[in-house]
């Protein structure tokens, strides 16, 4: 049997919450669990959310936006990272610029995004792209740079061309680290989407839902939305971890 210790604190928090809600007795500050749970039990219903769509509808919209921004980030960052990992020249040209841009939080790009792409999907996807881009890029560079020199030299002595080395050695050897970059990048995009959906003109998505609920004083809907955001984040992270165990177990076992 697994140890119950990890569950102890969550259970205490929930009990504490319910007790606190009872004493505060103000659903706008802290709604009772009994008003949150029904929303979570009816994820396909929009009767709690005042016509902004069900939890599932909004989650699907958010996931679509994240998938788009995340895929674009990966499509740019992975090839760029491989190039920078392989070529000292390319690395020298780009490194300073990337180091300069990297510490800027994705949300600081919001005004520029609005100026460039106006209100709408493109702006949101742009913010998500920025969020996912740097972890994927840096991990890819790191993965490519940490390829064992012997792996490349073995390939050379066996007659491999540059394309073989890229496709059969570099990509495979760096894949576990790139995967870690994707996992971290996805986590950040998922955080970004909520904030990006606060941009004016947005009418769907989990971020929009919780902000909209705030305007109507529906704290129970806000909390239900937060719970869903958290659950989706955990599930996707677990999917990445499962992929890591399934495909890249060799990295941990290698001596």
């Amino acid at each position, binding site marked *: 049997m697994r140890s119950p210790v990890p569950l102890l604190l969550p259970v205490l928090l929930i009990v504490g919450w319910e007790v606190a809600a009872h004493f505060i007795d103000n659903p706008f500050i802290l709604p009772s669990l009994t008003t949150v749970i029904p929303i979570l039990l009816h994820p396909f219903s929009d009767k709690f959310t005042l016509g902004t769509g069900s939890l599932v509808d909004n989650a699907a919209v958010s996931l679509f936006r994240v998938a788009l921004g995340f895929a674009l980030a990966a499509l740019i960052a992975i090839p760029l990272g491989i190039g920078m990992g392989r070529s000292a020249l390319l690395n020298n040209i780009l490194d300073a610029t990337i180091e300069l841009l990297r510490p800027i939080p994705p949300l600081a790009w919001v005004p520029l995004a609005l100026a460039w792409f106006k209100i709408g999907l493109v702006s949101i996807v742009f913010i998500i792209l920025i969020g996912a881009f740097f972890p994927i890029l840096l991990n890819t560079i790191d993965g490519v740079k940490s390829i064992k020199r012997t792996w490349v030299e073995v390939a050379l002595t*066996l007659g*491999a061309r540059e394309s073989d080395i890229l496709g059969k050695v570099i990509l495979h050897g760096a894949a576990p680290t790139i995967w870690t970059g994707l996992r971290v990048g996805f986590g950040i995009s998922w955080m970004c989407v909520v904030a990006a959906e606060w941009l004016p003109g947005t009418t769907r998505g989990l971020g929009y839902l919780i902000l909209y609920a705030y305007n109507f004083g529906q704290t129970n809907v806000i909390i239900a939305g937060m719970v869903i955001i958290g659950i989706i984040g955990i599930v996707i992270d677990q999917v990445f971890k499962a992929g890591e165990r399934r495909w890249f177990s060799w990295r941990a076992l290698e001596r």
Partner: protein
Amino acid sequence: MTLTIRNITKDFLVPGDQSICALSEITFSVADEEFVSVLGPSGCGKTTLLRIIAGLEYATSGSIEINGEIISGRSPRMAMIFQEYSLYPWRTVRDNVTFGLEVGGMHKSQAREVAQTYLHLVGLDDFADRYPHELSGGMRQRVTVARALAIKPQILLMDEPFGALDAQTRNRLQEELLEIWEKTKKTIIFVTHSVDEAVYLADRLIVLTSRPARVCEVIPIHLARPRDRTGQEFARVRRQVLDLIAQPKCSLQ
């Protein structure tokens, strides 16, 4: 086929625009199907010499010739076996062996057959579907031997391939290597710092000095095979070799 290493010199640039000479005027020839050991102290540049022969590094001057013809860069007639584990951990044993065949454009099914042949030669038929991390150190080095042989090189370049193994496994692999050498008729250049290993394996020893490495002795080993490591003859030859490399001109530290 004769492999000739002619006047190979290698200078390394170090910070401060100084150059350090690693190899100095190295010259020797290796005959067809000969087993030659390059013996020298650690860090003397043996590995650099082997890498130059393999075409992984360039010499500052001098040339590598096969049958009098200068070869520049890598040659499909040579395969190198590295000191440390060089298998691809994401590929099965079989797919490691087929690597050189794949990049050479061989059809997958044919490559698998060839791989099976060489895995059989090194006694690993039953491990084709395993991953490198499931294998012992000795088994892994057997796979690297199979992988090198699969591309059918004439010359095997071996860089202290058994250096990381325990003594028993090392002896076992030396015996197996000799069997494979006799079966496949390869020319082998085997780099080592172990006098025992060199005397046990080689037809001829090329003894290098420490930096800059020069050839200080070429010692033929006239011992019938199979050689008995514990025999008097072996001890005598080993003593001779140790005496020769103890001369001031060789000064193995």
